[in-house]
């Protein structure tokens, strides 16, 4: 077990999935308050055709180029969802479901063409669907680290502005913040986080990295700042522990293990969380019952004494 941790490649991969978890946990909180939890699911699926087209164009697996392709096609997906929702009577979740599955279908079409033209030497490309962090090489890890740190930096440097923008857009307008500018910035860092996560977690499970830590963090605090810090921590833990577990087996996919660790954190938070956790709620309910009973007792005693 220790030998796995001491392996230098594993160390790099662990570091990168951890930072990825931190970045996703941070952005996830913003997506949570914007009520766009499933948007990340739609965006990560719609990144697939872009990845494959980028690969077909340059004929090699250069992570940076693939990320640019992914980002472009995810943004087109986001734009289409917006367009369909605003200019027809299709509801947003139907539009998301359509775009994600159609883009994914296109991705699969292109992927089988890529498989043919590349003579089967595309094994790295398949990994984008399920996520296999172990397949990453050092240059991939560095690309990922830089982008993830950039995302985290953007959130923390303008933390106050983000907060105002999320919770009081009217006020934000009043003090001269550009809502549109903030939204564009938000979409770009969301897309960046998603596309760098795809390599490690896969397009299908990327949504969990954004949604689960944020919802878990909500159970422990009412403060937005602490929620972000907690969510980032949960994300980081899920990334690192999940990657470690998947390194124990031969060819085990990384993404599912990361997701399951994140879900365990969620279940613990749901049960024992300080804010609205099931246990706390139950105890509060019992306490209310007790005080209500006591009040009733004193009341009836008082009546009898009279």
């Amino acid at each position, binding site marked *: 077990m220790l030998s796995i941790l001491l392996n230098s490649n594993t160390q790099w991969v662990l570091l990168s999935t951890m930072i990825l978890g931190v970045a996703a946990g941070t952005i996830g909180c913003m997506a*949570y308050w914007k*009520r766009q*939890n*499933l948007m*990340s*699911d739609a965006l990560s*699926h719609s990144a697939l055709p872009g990845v494959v087209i980028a690969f077909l164009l340059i004929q090699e697996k250069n992570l940076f180029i693939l990320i640019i392709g992914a980002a472009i096609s995810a943004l087109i997906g986001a734009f289409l969802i917006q367009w*369909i929702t605003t*200019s*027809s*009577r*299709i*509801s947003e*979740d*139907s*539009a*998301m*479901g*359509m775009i*994600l*599955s*159609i883009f*994914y*279908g*296109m*991705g*699969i*079409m*292109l*992927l*089988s*063409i890529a498989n*043919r033209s590349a003579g089967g030497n595309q094994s790295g490309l*398949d990994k984008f*669907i*399920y996520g296999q962090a172990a397949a990453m090489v050092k240059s991939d890890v560095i690309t990922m680290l830089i982008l993830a740190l950039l995302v985290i930096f953007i959130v923390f440097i303008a933390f106050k502005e983000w907060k105002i923008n999320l919770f009081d857009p009217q006020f934000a307008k009043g003090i001269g913040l550009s809502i549109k500018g903030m939204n564009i910035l938000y979409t770009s860092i969301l897309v960046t986080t998603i596309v760098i996560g795809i390599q490690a977690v896969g397009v*299908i*499970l990327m*949504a*969990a990295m954004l*949604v*689960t830590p*944020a*919802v878990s963090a909500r159970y422990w605090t009412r403060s937005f700042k602490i929620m972000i810090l907690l969510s980032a921590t949960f994300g980081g833990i899920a990334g690192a522990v999940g990657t470690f577990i998947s390194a124990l*087996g031969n*060819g*085990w*996919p990384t*993404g*599912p*293990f990361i*997701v*399951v660790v994140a*879900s365990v954190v*969620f279940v613990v938070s*749901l049960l024992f969380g300080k804010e*609205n956790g*099931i246990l706390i709620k139950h105890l509060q309910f019992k306490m209310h019952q007790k005080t209500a009973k006591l009040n009733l007792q004193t009341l009836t005693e008082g009546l009898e004494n009279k």
Partner: protein
Amino acid sequence: MTYTGWIILTAALVGLSCGITGVFLILRKQAMMADAISHTVLLGIVIAFLITSEVSGPYMLIGGIFAGLLTAFLVQWLNSLKVQQDAGLGIVFTTLFAIGVILIATSAGNAHLDIQHALMGEITFIPFNTVTLPIIGDVPQATVLLAAVLIIVVITITLFYKEWKITSFDPALAASIGIPVLLMHYVFMSLVSITTVASFDAVGAIMVVAMLITPAASAYLWTDKLHNMLLLSGAFGVISAITGYYVAAWIDTSISGSMAFMTGIVFFISFIFSPKHGLIVKYV
């Protein structure tokens, strides 16, 4: 029947049953539920496989219904605990799907099940795996399953047509006149699950979402009448499935992928040219 004939028949059955079920998904605003169920059904199939150690229709159906209902129940439960609906959905389906993938990767990996197959489907293998039925003769197993599911779906919908209509358009009214809305919800989720399981072999977990949602959404742009929408959506599903097959054969690529792509084309045409809600009509 010829090899291609069976494939086209199977594809058409997928289009038809998904198209019909999808209408209610759109009307009940539960499109993403289809996405969730199509993923979690994988877990049901894996568990059914681990218990019975065979890949056969009935067990897969039972496993799929179980997983679909579990998903619907967990989402409902999280929702009652005041978790945002779409966040709850996201957590539930990613978790169950991840468990399914882990089970396949760790224990069932060497068997007939593999993730690739489950996610992308492989309609070209369908005609090889046949069962012998009385009178008709040898029929591919997946086709029989799809036909059975289609019959179940059609019967369930026509028997309680009025109830489906009321619960979809006005759940509050439905509840007030004594229709068991929650029960109908779970029955509907079971229908979605069995449709998904039956389509799994042919189109895989994610493309089935395209088959479920897109034809129905396209039909929604053409008509305001429920029965017209059902017919149109079924027709769109069949058209996309069959043209998808020929497109795939033409440029030699994934059949399920191009079926999903064709549903997108159908939607795009509807989105622009529909006489009621199309873009052109809006601008003119």
